[in-house]
């Protein structure tokens, strides 16, 4: 993906006479765009194959909207990052699809309350978590990201409670409640040191497997 973004940026810079700084901005934007399109496309295909399209998209979009403000741990290797994103937004929706019918209304309500209490706590304590490749240097931006994280979390809390109320009549709607809850949990856990260690471990295992494959 990085090579593709670089090749397209090179071509654009040559055709439009861009300097190196402008080319880097275009390359940066293209790399993000290619990642978004790739992950969404794979999710849509898998979602259609397993009949979990809306759960998959709900999870992917929920976590990415929150991530925009809260930041969080990142995997270093692009391949394993894409693989994990797709795996998470496939395995959990499949579990939701199989088990949501067996979880009672009161269990759903308690889960919603617990997930949002924990999420507000973790966001309050830890957000935003920046990345060495994109450090947050100013207090102004840190405050903006923190405020944004709370607003996004409040938005999803309202949506989840509305879905819960609708779900009392039609339990199929609980699937979307669970998708939002799991996506938010995954995202707020990625703010913790434990998750950073977990991601380092996955990166380490991926590198070992790659070395063995050579």
């Amino acid at each position, binding site marked *: 993906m990085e090579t593709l973004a670089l090749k397209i940026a090179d071509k654009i810079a040559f055709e439009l006479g861009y300097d190196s700084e402008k080319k880097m*901005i275009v390359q*940066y934007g*293209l790399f993000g765009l290619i990642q978004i399109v790739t992950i969404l496309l794979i999710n849509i295909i898998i979602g259609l194959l397993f009949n979990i399209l809306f759960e998959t998209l709900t999870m992917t979009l929920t976590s990415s909207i929150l991530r*925009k*403000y809260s930041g969080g741990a*990142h995997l270093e290797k692009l391949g394993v990052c894409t693989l994990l994103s797709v795996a998470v937004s496939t395995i959990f929706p499949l579990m939701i699809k199989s088990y949501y019918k067996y979880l009672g209304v009161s269990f759903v309500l308690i889960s919603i309350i617990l997930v949002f209490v924990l999420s507000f706590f973790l966001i309050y304590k830890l957000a*935003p978590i920046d*990345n060495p*490749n*994109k450090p947050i240097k100013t207090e102004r931006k840190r405050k903006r990201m923190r405020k944004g994280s709370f607003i996004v979390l409040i938005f999803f809390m309202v949506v989840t409670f509305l879905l819960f109320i609708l779900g009392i009549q039609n339990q199929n709607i609980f699937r979307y409640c669970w998708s939002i809850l799991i996506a938010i949990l995954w995202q707020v856990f990625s703010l913790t040191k434990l998750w950073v260690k977990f991601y380092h471990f996955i990166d380490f295992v991926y590198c070992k497997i790659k070395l063995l494959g050579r």
Partner: protein
Amino acid sequence: MKKFYAVIAAVATVLATMFATSACFWFGNQPVEPASLRDE
């Protein structure tokens, strides 16, 4: 063809600016941010 490249460049620049105002990339791996986009 130049118009086509200009459209792609414009879309990529808008996206890059949106990424710059975020904590990190929303999907996938975070590459090194270009210096001119950094919110110093």
